[in-house]
């Protein structure tokens, strides 16, 4: 399929789709652990993706020293008051006897703590956001290589998952789904509005890349030689003209950069696939499936359901967090406004359902198919609309309307595919296979 796009549209487009397919594959493998192995309905995938992206930004962006110097102290004060409030709260909860007295003390602690946090926090954010707001206005990051953030993104997502798990696990699946959906929405609104941390909707652009830039490539001697070698001779054996050569340079620089990304992503996908398959076939994986299939029986065998669920939830979220960091790396920018649940939560669900829940390879295939359809549905719908429009007059309002709404065709298509697969092939394209060493 991708080859067709490569020849039909351009290799750049094909590789761009391929790279996003790879990232989607990582996401769907993460979800597959949660849903396919353990049967957890996680509707907050977006939260993990976003925190992965945030980490990527924070790791790679160079620190804004001025912002630290003006806002650092009050921000630390806010943090310290937060910690003190939590400690005081825990002390009150543990030490005092149950009753109305404890409730009142608790409320007082929380309110006083809140006032202090709020006071320092507002001072800090005001100062930080005032620092050169057109360019920075936030704290910046650590200035480390962005590749490092893939690991850190996974860890951050794991931390968040631990927190979510503390609150929401142990509830039944529907509640869990709603709770995770809520947390992911809150996560996004924090990213959008806490300008001191993430610049909010003003976005952070120009993140450092792990691969060379196109412009540099076109100057590099070895790359010139490579292109020369590749395109060097025309069909009749003569050297090609300079114009064609320049165009070829531009094209191949784009392709080369994307190939570098692909290589990095393929490595990640393979590593995660290897680990995930091993985990699935290990006694641990067998235990997970046992819990999924019959919680009561597994619990009677002495398995701690909730803590196992938490474990798999954290691991899965970490994988999704890695993919979030990868995505931000690929984009080279962090845009909180672009995180919408349909794209970052429910589309991943379609991938796993189509591919076959419980099967890692299936999750990858599902991710590829789904992402491909998702991207290519738009030009196809536009083409379809233009075919219909042949019969409509230029001024027909229906014609314009159709042109505008054609991209939304893919939503309907996705829903339709999902419902149909769920109905007629509930196990997906590659069904879960029982390991042979039972």
């Amino acid at each position: 399929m991708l080859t067709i796009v490569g020849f039909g549209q351009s290799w750049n487009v094909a590789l761009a789709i391929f790279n996003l397919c790879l990232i989607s594959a990582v996401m769907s493998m993460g979800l597959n652990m949660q849903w396919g192995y353990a049967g957890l309905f996680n509707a907050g995938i977006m939260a993990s993706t976003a925190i992965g992206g945030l980490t990527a930004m924070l790791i790679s962006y160079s620190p804004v020293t001025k912002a630290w110097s003006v806002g650092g102290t009050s921000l630390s004060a806010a943090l310290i008051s937060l910690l003190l409030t939590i400690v005081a709260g825990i002390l009150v909860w543990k030490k005092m006897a149950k009753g109305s007295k404890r409730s009142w003390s608790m409320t007082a602690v929380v309110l006083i703590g809140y006032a202090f946090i709020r006071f320092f926090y507002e001072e800090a954010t005001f100062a930080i956001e005032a620092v050169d707001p057109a360019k920075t206005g936030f704290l910046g990051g650590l200035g480390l290589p962005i590749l490092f953030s893939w690991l850190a993104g996974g860890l951050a997502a794991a931390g968040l998952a631990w927190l979510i798990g503390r609150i929401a696990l142990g509830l039944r699946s529907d509640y869990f789904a709603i709770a995770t959906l809520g947390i992911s929405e809150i996560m996004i609104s924090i990213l959008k509005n806490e300008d001191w941390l993430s610049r909010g909707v003003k976005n952070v652009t120009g993140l450092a890349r792990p691969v060379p830039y196109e412009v540099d490539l076109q100057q590099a001697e070895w790359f010139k030689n490579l292109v020369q070698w590749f395109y060097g001779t025309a069909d009749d054996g003569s050297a090609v003209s300079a114009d064609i050569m320049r165009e070829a340079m531009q094209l191949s620089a784009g392709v080369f950069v994307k190939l570098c990304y692909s290589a990095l992503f393929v490595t990640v996908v393979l590593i995660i696939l290897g680990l995930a398959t091993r985990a699935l076939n290990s006694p641990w994986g067998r235990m997970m499936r046992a819990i999924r299939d019959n919680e009561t029986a597994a619990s009677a065998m002495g398995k701690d359901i909730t803590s196992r669920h938490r474990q798999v939830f954290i691991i899965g979220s970490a994988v999704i967090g890695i993919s979030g960091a990868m995505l931000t790396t690929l984009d080279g920018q962090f845009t909180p406004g672009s995180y919408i649940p349909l794209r970052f939560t429910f589309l991943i669900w379609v991938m796993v359902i189509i591919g076959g829940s419980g099967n890692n390879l299936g999750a990858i295939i599902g991710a590829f198919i789904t992402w491909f359809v998702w991207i290519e549905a738009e030009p196809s719908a536009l083409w379809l609309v233009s075919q219909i429009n042949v019969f409509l007059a230029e001024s027909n309002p229906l014609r314009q309307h159709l042109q505008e709404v054609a991209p939304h065709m893919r939503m309907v298509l996705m829903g339709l595919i999902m419902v149909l697969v769920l109905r007629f092939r509930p196990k997906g394209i590659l069904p879960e296979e029982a390991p042979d060493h039972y």
Partner: protein
Amino acid sequence: MDYSTDLLNALVLITNYVLIPSISYGSQLALGAVGVTLVFGILRFANFAHGEMMAFGTMATIFITWWFQSMGVSMGVFPTALLALPFAILITTLLAVAIDRSVFSFYRASKSKPVTFVVASVGVMFMLNGLVRILIGTDEIIFRDGQKFLIKAGAFKKMTGLSEGLALKQTQVLTFVLAVIAVLALFWFLQRTRTGKAMRAFSDNEDLALLSGINPELVVMVTWIIAASLATLAGVLYGLDKSFKPMVYFHLLLPIFAAAIVGGIGQPLGAILGGYVVAFSEITATYAFKKFIKYIAPSDFAPEGLTQFLTTEYKFAVSFFILVLVLLVRPTGILRGRVL
């Protein structure tokens, strides 16, 4: 100016910015939450497509309203949308029943796990989402007509001589009145009619209900009809009060779920309570109390900031916070609902 006028001003301020908006928003949430809770009680799954169903119903209403307006039909001071509402409800119920027949009935027959239903409802959500956007686009649409205000802020100031105005929109009153009527009708139906009793029995104990000869397909169908009607009503009232935007309806899902769970899932009365609890807390937590404190506190004391607990962007964080609190402290909800 003496202190009692200050107090009155403070009271009017709160009524205008917190009380009235909360009541109308709460009624809209309550109507949505009753639908969710009924589907949960009877079909036993959380319907993720409910928000989109509201959007669809509202969209149908807008189309019919436009059609009426183009024919010159209107209701004078009332919005034309009210006239279109019954037809839109009819269309939405047909859609809901059709979806149930084509998607959910299969899983019911094969006795699938509740989670499968939820996943299927996500698929339905996708489809409805795309459908609404294809049919009406993604722009913001204001389809309110007729008289806008019952009491205008300026007129109120003149009438009472207070420095704070009180505005009462017609849609706010309409919302409340229609919500009360709908809820009363629903309770009469559930308590007094045969089908309603069958529904409650089915919700309580499915096997026993089947044994006593209750037709499950009828119960399910009626549930969808009620849920779709209430969804349309809630969606239209929300759209009349604010405006119609497909995106917003998706985000309404969270407060609606919160309301249903807070009230005790499977309990229509609880869902209504939950709707108001969520609405009141959302609006109170994001309201800037600066002016209010200025009125009630001694004259020389004025707070520095806006005295807002949370900025307005974190509105739905509030509903979620309540949700978590209830889940931790009293998982069954305010009125004891089904324990999950």
